């Protein structure tokens, strides 16, 4: 059985039962396949859940790349980022109940972070592939710190937009669209040195922290 088929079957199960299957054995039986077929792709339910969120990111990324290659007006980096987010929230909209299940608020928030881990890698890989050059960051001599700084900023923005969408109650989540437009404009035009230095400082800290480990 294919990876995607298993993921979509698991999503349906979650939506229907509002909880995980009792065991991998139960789930395999539900799919009428052998357990080892699932283990070929996923070691656990946690791994499946993290894959779903990453899958949404991939979905939006592929659509964005496709549009950028077919229409000149959508090729520059900033436009691509806006397109990505607008598409991403459309993907989320189509799966809102599932996303709310996978990203619980309150006490279980830690679970939400775990479920976003793989999405984070997929997203940051995509952002790095865009090779975004922020003029205001050119004063940083170390490429590594520069990359980390962008990572921190980009992921922070991702989380902010996701959180905004989770709470958005406007029709068709119209406000999230506006939020995306404004916050992307802000981040690409940002040049206030105090804010920037704080972000760079954080980027440095994260770099050193990872090196120290």
């Amino acid at each position, binding site marked *: 059985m294919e990876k995607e088929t298993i993921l979509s079957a698991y999503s349906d199960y979650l939506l229907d039962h509002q909880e995980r299957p009792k065991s991998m054995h139960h789930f395999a039986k539900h799919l009428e396949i052998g357990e080892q077929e699932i283990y070929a792709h996923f070691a656990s339910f946690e791994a499946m859940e993290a894959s779903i969120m990453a899958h949404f990111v991939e979905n939006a990324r592929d659509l964005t790349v496709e549009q950028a290659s077919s229409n000149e007006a959508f090729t520059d980096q900033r436009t691509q980022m806006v397109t990505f987010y607008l598409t991403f929230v459309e993907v989320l909209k189509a799966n809102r109940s599932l996303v709310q299940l996978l990203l619980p608020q309150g006490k279980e928030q830690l679970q939400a972070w775990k479920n976003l881990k793989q999405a984070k890698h997929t997203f940051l890989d995509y952002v790095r592939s865009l090779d975004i050059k922020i003029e205001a960051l050119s004063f940083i001599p170390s490429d590594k710190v520069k990359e980390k700084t962008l990572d921190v900023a980009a992921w922070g923005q991702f989380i902010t937009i996701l959180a905004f969408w989770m709470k958005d109650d406007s029709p068709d989540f*119209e406000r999230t669209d506006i939020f995306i437009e*404004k916050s992307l404009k802000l981040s690409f035009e940002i040049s206030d040195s105090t804010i920037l230095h704080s972000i760079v400082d954080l980027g440095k800290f994260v770099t050193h922290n990872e090196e120290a480990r």
Partner: protein
Amino acid sequence: MKKLDKIPTSKTQRAAKMLKVGTGVGANYVKYWGKKLVSDKEAAKEQLDEANAAVIYDGLSEMKGSALKVAQMMSMDQSILPKAFVEKFSLAQFQVPPLSAPLARKVLTKELGKSPEEIYDSFDYDSRFAASIGQVHEAWKDDQKLAVKLQYPGVAKSISSDLQIVKPVAMRMFNLKSEDVAEYFEEVESKLHEETDYTLELQQLQDAIDSCSVMPNLTFPKPFKEMSTKTVLTMEWKEGKHLSEYDGMEPTQEQRNQIAQTLWDFYLFQIHELRKVHADPHPGNFMVSPENELIALDFGCVKALPDDFYNSYFKLTHPENISNRETFLGILKELDVVTEGDTPEEQKLLADTFERLLTIVNRPFQSERFDFSSPEYFHELMMLGNELKDQKELRKLSGKRGSRHFLYVNRTLFGLLGLMNALNAGPVDVYHHEKYLTKRALNGRRA
């Protein structure tokens, strides 16, 4: 520091923005008092107005949407506002950051049900013009060039809360009390809501096209219903220059006269024949074609004149109704300018004031031809406006003054006078429009 162009989306954020405007104005007053000690009073006041206008404008333009519309509206009334305010607010219609291509595409797709690429043969995502609540894109379909007006998402919903925030600032600017302005704000709010409905605008544009076909030298962009919705309006693209850039076309005096006459006829025809008038006469809403035709754009704001208001208002254009004090007071009462509770002294003050005002405003109608380019006429009008604004006795009068319909009718009238003046044309045939009328106009040609 480069300005962050983050448009606030919730009411609290908007409130914070307005607060910034408020404190900015305060700071300017501090500077004003500082300057006043050392320099000449008039110059300091002028600088203060300019500084305040800049701060308020910057605050408003960041809020985009309806607050910007209010700024524009206030800028129309050149005779009430000090010059600096007007100059700064007039910029309001030009400076707004455009929507990004992806968001424009998403909004259009959501509205029209298909992507712009599917609907039009080509679509340019770089907007060509900005309007205060939308932007205009160029598109092509079946070898025809089109103008696609796209409304900013979320604008319609923010109007009421925006107005609540603008209200105290506006009241402070014009020295008004809250109970005096409720009805006026209601009028503004309902008009602004109408302006966010492009379906209504399309209908109003179509009505104008149908009813104004008798008038020569006047044209409109044809709308396309099947490519329009509540927030998207597709129209024929009209080539030409905006009225503000007309001088750049180097028109002959004869051409200027023709445009001025057409503009004048267009307005008087609407008022007297249609009793519905394009209520947003600013230079951005008119263009002149290469063939020197007047092109009227933007029918979002159309003011209908109810019969009783029309009848009372235009009775005031007859000098004999003004010179007879009893008749005059009767008309002023019909228009809510004078109220039953006014003392005889207050009634006299109001009647005297309006008599002076109307003598000037009515002057063009006292002759067959009138030269609107005359600076003396406008100077006189503005001087009187300034004088009335500062008159303590008038300010002290309680209650609201004047029918709510005055708001947009006066804006239209003063806007028209401003446009006529800026055109720098020769004398215009004041009653030329009468040949197009089927109804009897209340301020008909004097015998």
